[in-house]
């Protein structure tokens, strides 16, 4: 499937290898998606460039208010991180349900974004955290909001034959904020999501200052329901407000009939259920702080 497998020791070295192979070499982190593509031959490559030995990519870091997750950090590490559990609960929850323990031990959160699947669990959570990706290439470093990285289902705008996402970063949740992640799937593990919902709420006194509501897969990338978010802005917290937001999200979301994910009719109804539950849980968590 490939001729060469290399372990560069730095980002610079990795970029040089990519450059020398002129599009025939590709970055690999955990490989839980990429190896399947290579086995299925939907992708071919001459050389894999494994980022595992690059120290700069191995860690979860806190930089003031910001949290950075390096490209080499696995779902398991994120799920068990006290920092993420406390300041990005929605992401810890998402990371703890990806695939299976074996997949979580290998696969990375950054890889989940680059694989560009429409409902990738941690990507859905990262959208709710308004995360950005730091991308290193021959022309330097760029910071790009995640929603700008999707070209289509399974197609990333990141060119892994020429550039490297070094980390994703977002502002850790503050005292007045709560978050929640809800997943609907046919099994509790080893199952693609029928629906993923990620929510972050910011409260002030007894009002919603702001809410972020992400639903997937109902679009080629994780979908923020602006309509639902708008219904909550500046509004007092009440079951009625939550109900209206959940209805707005269900209204705006457009899941398709899918043999894999379930019918459009059922999933549209379940968007309302999951958004309601996620909002209730996020509010409770914000209040507990």
């Amino acid at each position, binding site marked *: 499937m490939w001729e060469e497998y290399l372990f560069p020791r730095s980002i610079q070295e990795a970029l040089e290898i990519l450059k020398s192979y002129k599009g025939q070499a590709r970055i690999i982190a955990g490989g839980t998606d990429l190896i399947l593509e290579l086995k299925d031959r939907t992708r071919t490559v001459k050389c894999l460039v494994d980022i595992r030995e690059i120290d700069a990519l191995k860690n979860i870091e806190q930089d003031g208010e910001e949290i950075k997750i390096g490209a080499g950090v696995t779902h*398991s590490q994120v799920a068990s991180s006290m920092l993420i559990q406390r300041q990005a609960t929605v992401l810890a929850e998402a990371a703890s349900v990806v695939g299976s*323990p074996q997949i979580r031990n290998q696969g990375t959160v950054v890889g989940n974004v680059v694989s560009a699947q429409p409902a990738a669990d941690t990507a859905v959570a990262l959208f709710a955290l308004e995360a950005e990706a730091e991308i290193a290439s021959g022309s330097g470093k760029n910071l790009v909001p995640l929603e700008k990285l999707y070209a289509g289902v399974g197609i990333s705008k990141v060119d892994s034959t020429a550039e490297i996402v070094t980390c994703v970063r977002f502002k850790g949740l503050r005292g007045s904020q709560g978050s929640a992640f809800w997943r609907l799937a046919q099994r509790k593990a080893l199952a693609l999501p029928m629906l993923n919902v990620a929510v972050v709420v910011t409260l002030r006194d007894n009002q919603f200052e702001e809410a972020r509501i992400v639903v997937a897969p109902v679009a080629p990338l994780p979908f923020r329901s602006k309509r639902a978010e708008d219904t909550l802005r500046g509004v007092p917290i009440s079951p009625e407000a939550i109900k209206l937001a959940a209805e707005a999200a269900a209204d705006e979301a457009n899941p398709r009939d899918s043999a894999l994910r379930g019918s459009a009719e059922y999933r549209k109804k379940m968007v309302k259920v999951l958004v309601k539950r996620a909002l209730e849980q996020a509010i409770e968590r914000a209040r507990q702080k």
Partner: protein
Amino acid sequence: MGKRLVTMTVNGETAEVAVEPSAMLIDVLRDELGLIGVKDACGRGECGTCTVILDGKAVNSCIIPVMKAVGKEVWTIEGLDRQLGKLHPIQEAFIEYGAIQCGFCTPGMVLSAKALLDENANPTEQEVRVALSGNICRCTGYVKIINAVLAVAQRMKK
């Protein structure tokens, strides 16, 4: 594409083996090292039958390039009784509790259990269920497997 000589620690011993750079770990373990206790089923990381322990973590060897294991420590089911010279307590409990029917999922299941107990000697039932959730069994219905793992945790505490 030629083979190259690589070194890794397998079941506690240094293994030097000639591999194709694009080989998967499972193929090297089975075909080059004769460790056919590592079972090959879905080939896509979706069933856990091929589970091995790599640097202390349970992983699906069917989707791990062998190059990722170079210089690292790998444990397969064969390593469990080889180390002790007799069946590992987890293996004994599986037999005692009737947690084995056809046996095909068993190596992977035992290793996922070992990875759990190495990290968490006193797991709750929920933690056992989650730790084994990446291993599919078509025969047993899982109850006896979970009971066996909980029993081992109790025993190994003493």
